[in-house]
């Protein structure tokens, strides 16, 4: 493996990842603003974004902490939102599983929707890629997205306290979540899962310790899985 080829794999990753700066940027900005509004200082906001790197999970944790939910519920709910990264990890393992452990550990830290989606489709399309090329391509896809993520978290935190009052920020979070989840409604099973989760969450809102969220989430997952089985049995999957 010549270094020119691995170099070009890195830059190919950077190029493919560049458009996703536009996705990561606004969410990081919004997180910085909302976290600052919730009383976090700049150092806390940056630590959060740096340690966790997961938009939806960070928003979930922020909302539940403001609702004064018990810490364990905050953690379970935010991790449940982030469970999909375990599936990404599984999907990339056939391609990166033979890389050195430290590289896999670093890759794991940077595993987000964008790095997974780009790398998986690239590795699938080009099975002849060497393992070092795959690794540098992967890190290439992460590079700009991660810089944007940290920079915009910082910018949002810096802006947070200077925003004029009267902007309905209380509703920025619901709109952000809904806009993340709506494009995920790819099949009938996804729609059923969401619908059941919504109904149960509204009924279960009085269950203490925010446990209603966990109950509603599990009900939705069961409903989605059952719908999928039912569609499979009818040959419509």
């Amino acid at each position, binding site marked *: 493996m010549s270094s020119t080829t691995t170099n070009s794999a890195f830059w190919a990753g950077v190029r493919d990842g560049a458009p996703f700066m536009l996705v990561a940027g606004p969410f990081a900005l919004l997180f910085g603003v909302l976290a600052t509004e919730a009383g976090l200082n700049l150092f806390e906001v940056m630590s959060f974004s740096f340690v966790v790197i997961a938009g939806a999970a960070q928003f979930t944790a922020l909302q539940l902490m403001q609702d004064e939910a018990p810490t364990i519920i905050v953690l379970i709910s935010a991790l449940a939102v982030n469970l999909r990264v375990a599936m990404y990890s599984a999907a990339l393992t056939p391609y990166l*599983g033979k890389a050195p452990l430290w590289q896999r550990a670093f890759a794991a830290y940077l595993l987000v929707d964008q790095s997974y989606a780009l790398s998986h489709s690239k590795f699938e399309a080009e099975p002849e890629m060497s393992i070092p090329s795959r690794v540098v391509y992967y890190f290439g896809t992460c590079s700009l997205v991660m810089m944007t993520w940290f920079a915009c978290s910082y910018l949002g935190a810096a802006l947070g306290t200077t925003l004029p009052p009267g902007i309905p920020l209380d509703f920025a979070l619901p709109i952000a979540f809904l806009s993340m989840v709506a494009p995920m409604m790819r099949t009938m099973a996804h729609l059923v899962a969401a619908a059941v989760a919504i109904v149960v969450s509204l009924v279960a809102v009085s269950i203490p310790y925010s446990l209603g969220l966990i109950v509603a989430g599990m009900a939705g997952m069961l409903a*989605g899985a059952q719908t999928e089985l039912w569609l499979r049995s009818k040959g419509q999957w």
Partner: protein
Amino acid sequence: MVDKTTLWIVIFGLGAGSFLLRFSFLGLVGDRPLPDWLLRHLRYTAVAILPALVAPLVVYSGENGVTDPTRVTAAVATVVAGIWTKSVFAAIGTGALTLAIALQFAG
């Protein structure tokens, strides 16, 4: 206001938990396959948990937990735009715009 001790427990707990989720297969499990029933449920975690988190915020969004029509309208517009266009941006833009217009009318 968020309690500082809770905040740091959440930051590091969530960081460690997320890392374990991300590292799980790449680092530990290798490429042994997962049972189908587990994958089938995992597929629906995000589409179940996120709506369950948002639904009460939307429906009980007004003063003292009553329903605020402007916010419900904005939420519905966001979802419709998101499902229709499959674009996160189009959904956010539509939702924010609808909320701004609805708030103007609600005065």
